[in-house]
Structures are given as C-alpha cells and as structure tokens.
C-alpha cells in the first residue's frame, strides 16, 4: 500500500495580487516502509512539501493521500489529529521544548496521539536512541547530537506510519550526522515506518538507496526568479 500518493499537486502562495506557485508535482508515490530522500537547493520547496505531507498546509489543487488519508479536503482539526496519529516530524533545529527534560519531551510527543504518555515507552525510546543516561537532562544540557536523538525518539513516540525529516543533520558535525542518520534509519526499520528525508547535503543523500532531486519532482521551481540556486 502506498504511504504517500501525490497527483497533480499544486501549491500557490498568494500575497496581495501576486501569486507564486511554489509546488507543482504531477505525480509521486512512496510505498509503505520505504526510506526516501529528496534533495535539492535551499528554497526549492522541500520543507513546504514536507509540510503538505504533514497536513500543516493544504494544496491549492490536486490530490494528496498520506497513510490512507486524503488531505486535500480534510478540515484543519482533523488534519491535526491525523498528524498526531500518523506523522513523526523531525526538524533541523530539533524544536525541543526548553523547559522540559528529555523524557518529558518524548512524552510530549505522545500527548496528542493515541498513546497518551506511557512512561515506559518513552524511556524505552530514549534507550533505543542511546540516551538512557539522559532522561532528566534539559535540552540546554545536551549536545546537539543528543538533542536530535531526543527529537528522533519524540518523532517515534506515537508509533507513526510516516517519519518526515527536514534537514535533520543540518546542525550536526559529520560524526553526529552519521550517528543520527543510522539511528533514524534503524528506528524506522525497527518500527516499520516510512521515512521521507529532505536535505541539500550529498553526504546525507548517500545514505539512501532511493533518492531523487526535488527539482525533478517540482516543476514550479524556477531558480532564476530570486531563489537560491
């Protein structure tokens, strides 16, 4: 079964009278359990696409089916619930809550989903990402690599069907980058998640057997209209 199915997807940003087509993807499909990388330059719409897949944005036209849910006409509150149940999102800048320790950040990932903060599961996830000794540590007390591990554990918290990773290693040194990528892929494999990762780093893309340049996917991207090449 396809985890992601995109048909004639268009996203247009409107600013006053100006209309900017950001995404124009004729067709794309990812099967369940696949690990997929999209790469391309900054400003090419990769993050915007991930946001569409997460239900954070709605397409202007076209069809978008994620984990069996048609997102194009789904009301916002329903998309929120969909996100809580089906999606794990990992950000480049981790987006951990600074006032919460590692364990609480993972528990937070369960708060809005179906699992409702099971402590043992949260501890087990932190153990899985190698942070069994850091439960009580706050983000400011963790290294960047450790913070991203917590973010990976949080993304896995609800046993999502799809993990979306937006430049997850952008803030890490090569050693931590490789460690986090291995962890992410292993975790997705262990939990049977589909993984879609976007990055502009060749070293990251080389970790994936299935990788396509986002420019091939997105016909709307025009490098000569003010966006970074």
């Amino acid at each position, binding site marked *: 079964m396809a985890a992601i199915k995109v048909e004639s997807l268009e996203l247009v940003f409107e600013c006053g009278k100006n209309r900017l087509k950001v995404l124009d993807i004729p067709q794309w499909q990812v099967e369940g359990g696949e690990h997929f990388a999209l790469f391309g330059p900054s400003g090419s719409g990769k993050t915007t696409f991930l946001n569409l897949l997460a239900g954070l944005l709605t397409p202007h036209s076209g069809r978008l089916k994620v984990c069996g849910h048609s997102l194009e006409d789904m009301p916002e*509150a329903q998309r*929120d*619930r969909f*996100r809580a*149940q089906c999606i794990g999102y990992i950000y480049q800048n981790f987006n951990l809550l600074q006032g919460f320790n590692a364990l609480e950040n993972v528990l937070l990932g369960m*708060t809005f*989903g179906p699992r409702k903060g099971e402590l043992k599961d949260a501890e087990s996830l932190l153990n899985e990402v190698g942070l069994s000794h850091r439960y009580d540590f706050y983000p400011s007390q963790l290294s960047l690599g450790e913070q991203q591990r917590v973010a990976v554990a949080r993304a896995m918290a609800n046993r999502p069907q799809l993990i979306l990773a*937006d430049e997850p290693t952008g803030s890490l040194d090569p050693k931590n980058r490789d460690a986090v990528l291995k962890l992410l892929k292993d975790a997705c494999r262990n939990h049977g998640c589909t993984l879609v990762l976007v990055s502009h780093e060749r070293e990251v893309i080389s970790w994936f057997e299935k990788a396509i340049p986002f420019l091939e996917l997105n016909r709307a991207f025009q490098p000569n209209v003010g966006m970074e090449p």
Partner: protein
Amino acid sequence: MAIGMALLVAVYSLKEQAHITFTQIGLGVDAILGPKGSPLQIVLNAIYHLEDMPGKIKWTYFKEVEKDPLVFQAIPFCVGHSYRGFRVNAIDRRFLTEFEYLPGKFFSFSQKAGGQGRPFQGSQEAVAGWTAAKSLRLRMGDEFHPVCGVQEGDPVHEKDKLQFVGILAPTGTPHDRAIYIPLETFYELSGHPPETVVMAERTEYREISGAYLKIKRIRGGAVHPGIQGLKFAVNQSDRNQIVIPSEVLPRLFNIIGWVDRVLLAIASILTALSALFLFFSLLSAMRERKRDLALLRSLGATRKTVMGLVISEALLISFLGGIMGLALGHGLTAFGALFIKAETGVGFTASYVSLADWLVLPGGLLLGLLAGLVPGIQAYRLGILQNLSPLS
C-alpha cells in the same frame, strides 16, 4: 491577586461578624436605662466599656422602671472607675449569677470553663472578666486600688484595697474586658464627696449610671413589642432614656460603613489590577512561547487545545491566587480578630465563612478567564509554520 483576594476575604469576614455580633446578638441586653445623651455613647459605655456615660439617673426612677410589668430583670450599674486600663464597674451581684449574657448562657466561675473563684459577696471583693484577668495577670487573692476615673493620671483610691475573689470564664463578649465590684462599694469608696457617700445608705438620694434591662418575651423568643411603649414613656422625661442596642448599633454601622466600603474598594482595585497584571504577563508570555505553542500544534494539538492550554494556565494561576487569598484572608481575619478582641473584648473567629469565601474562587476564576481570553485567542490564531522553522 492573592493579596487583593485576602483583603476581600478579611474585610468581608470581619464586617459580617461585626454586624452579627453588634446588631443581632445584643449581648443579652434588650435595653439600657440611662441618662439623657447620645444613645450610641450609652451603648458603647454600658456594653462595650468604651467612652463615658453622659450622666446619671436616679435610683428611685430605676426602681419605678424595674417595676414595669414588661421588665423581668433590671441590673443597675455605676461606671467611672478603672484599674490599669480596664473599666471597673460597680454592679448588682445578680449580674454575675442570674444575667443571661447570650441566649442560654450565664457567667461561670467553673475552672473547667476557664474561670476561678466565686462571685463577690463582701464590699471589698471584686471579680475580673477573663480578658482583664489574663491581661493584668491577676491571681485569686490579688488586691488593687481602683482609679477614680478612666483616664491616665486620674486619682487613685489609695485607701481602698479590693481583693479579687473570682475570675469569670471567657464569654467572647466585651464583658470579659471589665472588672466588677459590688454596686454599694461604689458609694463607699474613700475620697468620694459626702453627697456620694450618703447614697450608700439613703437610696432616695442614690444615683446610678444606668441599668441593663431584660424585657419579657413573646412567642418565638422575640422581645415584647411593648418595649417601644416603655421607651416612649421613659424618653418623655428630662433626665432619662431607654436605649435599645439593636436599634442603635445598626446606625453605628451606617456611620462607619464607609470604612469597609473603602477597604472593599481597595481590595477590589487590587484584585482588578492583579487580573490586569496577569493579563499582561500572559500576553508577554505568549510572545515568548509562540514557538513552543507552534511546536505543540505541529505535534497534533488542535487550535482549541492550545487556546485551552493558555486559558487553563490563567485559570490555574487565578485558582491558586484564590486559594492563597483564602488562606491569607483567614490569617488576616485572625490578626484582625486579635486586635478587635483586645480593643472591644468581642471574640471573632478566623474560621467564619463569609460571602467573600464563596465568591473568591468563582470570581477569581472569572477574572482568570477574562485575563486569559485574549492570549488564548492569540494562541488559537497562531500560525504553526510562521513560528516554527524557516522554509528550505
């Protein structure tokens, strides 16, 4: 917020207790037979041992009133003496043995109840109210010289030495704040002019400060309505009047009512200001926590959820403020009660539940809701992507 609410709780509690104590109980005195003058002054002097009595009344007149069929008990007294700040009242012995100071309650000397000794019998004996005895650290058998007057520097009856033979058990009324001596002793104290001394033997010349009157009851325990007729008749005279405490004291409350109105206004302003402070704090916290709330949204929290979180926080803060206000308010009431007891002898309790106790939490929660509404709406409208991460 807690301070404003504490003030509201304390002011309401003391106000309501004072109202009940001073207007409804009446301290066992249905009426006071006294001289012409300010009725309020007479009540304050006769019952609360404050102020001075504006004059005297004739014993013969008192006996006439005592015979009135409506009067079933009349206790004459003479005021004007003191001892180390406490009034020394010369009073009919029946006051200590037969006077019902509250419905069903009589003065007790029982050790179990906190009293000691017995009522006075001899002319040189005295009985102390519980507060007076405690404050002056009086012991049975202690002797004292009464002061002729109630001001500092008034002459002392050096030749008269009276002995304490009893200490009254606490009553929680102003009666605890006085020292009582036999009525006749008043006239016999040395240093009084001959015209006063003669009053001890010749009752036709005798004068008293006033008398507590107990009026017959009708069904349901209410005072006989004929008291108004008696009052009218007595008040026709040039020298005497009947004062009914339950009529006078509400007037006192009307006069001093502005004090608690001002205090209530201050407390209300404080509470409103603290709600405003809460509002601005939440608003500023919203600005700082936009990213956190956007993150919650990205994790699956709905707009209603994050709005609920912000409003819940405001409600929680105001609820805690309310709880602290209640605790602090009752603490303040306890402090105020101590002060009032020391000044008037009236015992208030910190555990009294006033109207404010019922209103503080719902009112606080309402203020919290109002304070959290705008930040809550801001949270509701928060855009996830604008507050979370840059596009790539």
